[in-house]
């Protein structure tokens, strides 16, 4: 199996795709305003003509490169290239301002590599075990799993749980458009032939994540940014290695663990790691003033997420985040269905993904240490050139899926929707996840009721179902309790002032 997977990955073209993916991802990641999800969504159409392994590895390369690339802009511009590197900016930019830009970039690169490496180990160790366990799932368990995935993602994403849920439900509703698989009835097609096979989620993703971001770029077209600090030596010195290993290993593991939870992305992981590193540090007062630990910990954590996020995607078919959702799209286009059966039916592809992730991290280290000066040149690409190019790529990319103009219309529509979602602080991720999890939830819901002859207690008939049910309740109540506690805390701090007055 391993030899078969190695044979799939160690092809010159696959290695080249991985290298190009990491380099491209680094360029995308370091450009403020271009998110990792947007980068992966833009590259996705290029994979339609490829085989399964090269296509998914190209996307993994972009993913790894973009998560790391975000730190370049965070350190040099004080503007995180991606939300995942926002925590890095706190100390990275301060280091760059002191003339230590190279040192900060070196620490960030090696910490990211360690985090990425740990996430690979997590993926390799946990994924097969989880997939094996998931083989015990039948229709009721899969329904509860889909519901749990949607609830946790909706409750975590965005500022309001209700808006997150509405976004997810709308995604699920869009997924019902087209031919009903079980009865063959048409739903919400309005006699439009383009809707008979449903709405493909790839143009929706390109619209929501890439086109909407381009509209935001148009809005901020006049905003200019200038890099700070000259990059001298990138390779860390003696004392920095101690900091890197002290933070890289535990926070890389933390990131990998957080990555396995659907919906909790690299941005949350990096802030948790930053907070923990500060509380554990012997010099917490240096945090925010250019602490090397403040760069190392969030970078290890955000790259640690990359492998962790692939675990629910590969084992359960549930995307851990929006990038994993795009990867599911890529695998589906190739005729591969992620989920527990993937490990049985297409194990070589799974192992190829493991090896590919490992190689992508090695490429990230090599490129990060050797060519960081070249990548920082990308920061000088003017927005007025970048934004129209992204728009053109969105049009071409969504057309390339089926050579159909209707997909372009869908992309543009969701681009507009995505823009207003961003303005209203509604997370678009639940919509996409609803679109992906909706059919899984519906088919298993109906299949379970078909098997139980309409008995709804089937959804709580096993221990696994109860476990998912408990997790659903916790995930829905957690943000409400958290908000109440925060409000209570606020009120308590305000009361003495009020009494004094």
């Amino acid at each position, binding site marked *: 199996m391993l030899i078969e997977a190695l044979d799939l990955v160690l092809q010159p073209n696959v290695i080249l795709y991985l290298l190009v993916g990491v380099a491209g991802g680094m360029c995308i990641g370091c450009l403020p305003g271009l998110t990792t999800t947007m980068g992966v969504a833009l590259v996705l159409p290029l994979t339609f003509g490829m085989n399964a392994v090269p296509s998914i590895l190209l996307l993994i390369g972009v993913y790894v490169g973009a998560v790391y690339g975000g730190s370049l802009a965070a350190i040099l511009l004080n503007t995180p290239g991606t939300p995942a590197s926002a925590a890095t900016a706190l100390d990275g930019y301060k280091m760059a301002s002191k003339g230590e830009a190279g040192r900060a970039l070196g620490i960030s690169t090696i910490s990211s590599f360690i985090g990425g490496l740990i996430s690979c180990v997590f993926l390799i160790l946990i994924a097969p075990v989880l997939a094996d366990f998931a083989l015990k799932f039948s229709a009721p368990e899969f329904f509860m799993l889909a519901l749990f995935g949607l609830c946790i993602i909706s409750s975590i994403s965005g500022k*309001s749980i209700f808006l997150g849920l509405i976004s997810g439900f709308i995604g699920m509703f869009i997924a019902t458009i087209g031919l009903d698989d079980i009865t063959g009835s048409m739903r919400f097609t309005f006699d439009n032939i383009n809707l008979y096979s449903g709405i493909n989620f790839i143009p929706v993703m390109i619209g929501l994540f890439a086109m909407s971001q381009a509209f935001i770029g*148009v809005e901020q077209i006049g905003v200019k940014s200038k890099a700070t600090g000259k990059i001298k030596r990138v390779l860390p010195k003696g004392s920095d290695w101690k900091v890197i290993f002290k933070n890289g290993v535990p926070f890389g593991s933390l990131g990998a663990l957080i990555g396995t939870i659907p919906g909790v992305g690299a941005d949350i992981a990096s802030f948790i790691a930053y907070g923990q590193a500060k509380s554990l540090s012997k010099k917490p007062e240096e945090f925010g003033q250019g602490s090397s630990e403040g760069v190392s910990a969030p970078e290890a954590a955000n790259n640690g997420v990359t492998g962790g996020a692939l675990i629910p995607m590969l084992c359960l078919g549930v995307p851990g985040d929006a990038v994993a959702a795009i990867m599911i799209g890529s695998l589906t286009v190739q005729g591969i269905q992620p989920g527990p059966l993937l490990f049985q039916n297409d194990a070589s592809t799974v192992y190829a993904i493991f090896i590919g992730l490992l190689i992508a991290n090695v490429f990230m280290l090599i490129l990060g240490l050797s060519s960081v000066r070249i990548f920082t040149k990308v920061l000088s690409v003017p927005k007025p050139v970048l934004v129209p190019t992204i728009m053109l790529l969105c049009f071409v990319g969504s057309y390339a899926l089926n050579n159909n103009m209707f997909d372009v219309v869908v992309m543009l529509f969701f681009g507009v929707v995505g823009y207003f979602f961003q303005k209203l602080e*509604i997370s678009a991720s639940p919509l996409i996840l609803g679109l992906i999890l909706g059919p899984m939830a519906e088919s298993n819901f109906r299949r379970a009721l078909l098997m139980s002859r309409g008995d709804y207690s089937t959804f709580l008939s096993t221990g696994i179902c109860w476990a998912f049910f408990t997790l659903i309740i916790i995930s829905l109540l957690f943000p409400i309790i958290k908000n109440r506690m925060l409000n209570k805390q606020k009120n308590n701090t305000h009361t003495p002032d009020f009494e004094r007055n």
Partner: protein
Amino acid sequence: MRKAHLISVVIFILFSIFSLYLSSDLPDSRRGVPGPAVWPIIISCAVLISGCIFFIKIFRKKESEPLELFNSDNIRVYITMGILVVYLILMNMIGFVVTSLVLIFGLFTWFSDIPLMKRAIFSFAIVGIVYGVFNYALNVPFRFGILF
């Protein structure tokens, strides 16, 4: 932001009512086994309930930070959206390369003060690379429209 949230949630509620109306035309459950109508009805009800709760929550809330939707930056975005709709229609009629060149050159001109020659070179290079990669390397046919 409060007003914008109220308007958006009303749209979501209206959407859920409309989808409930449409779902009622679909075949219902038979002998306890859910038909094609059941799932969309459940989702529409979920949107309706979440929307109503959010509406009440926002209605009680005091005005938060204002949301700018009609300043010059927003209007630039709306004009761009309009341009893209026109581009989509014209691309189908005229062809990909010609309309894309006009679009890219036009947007460069509008958004930046890059010299004319550079704008033209950038436009040709970007459209050329995109067309080359997708049409020749990825075999995506761009054979539509009366021109090229």
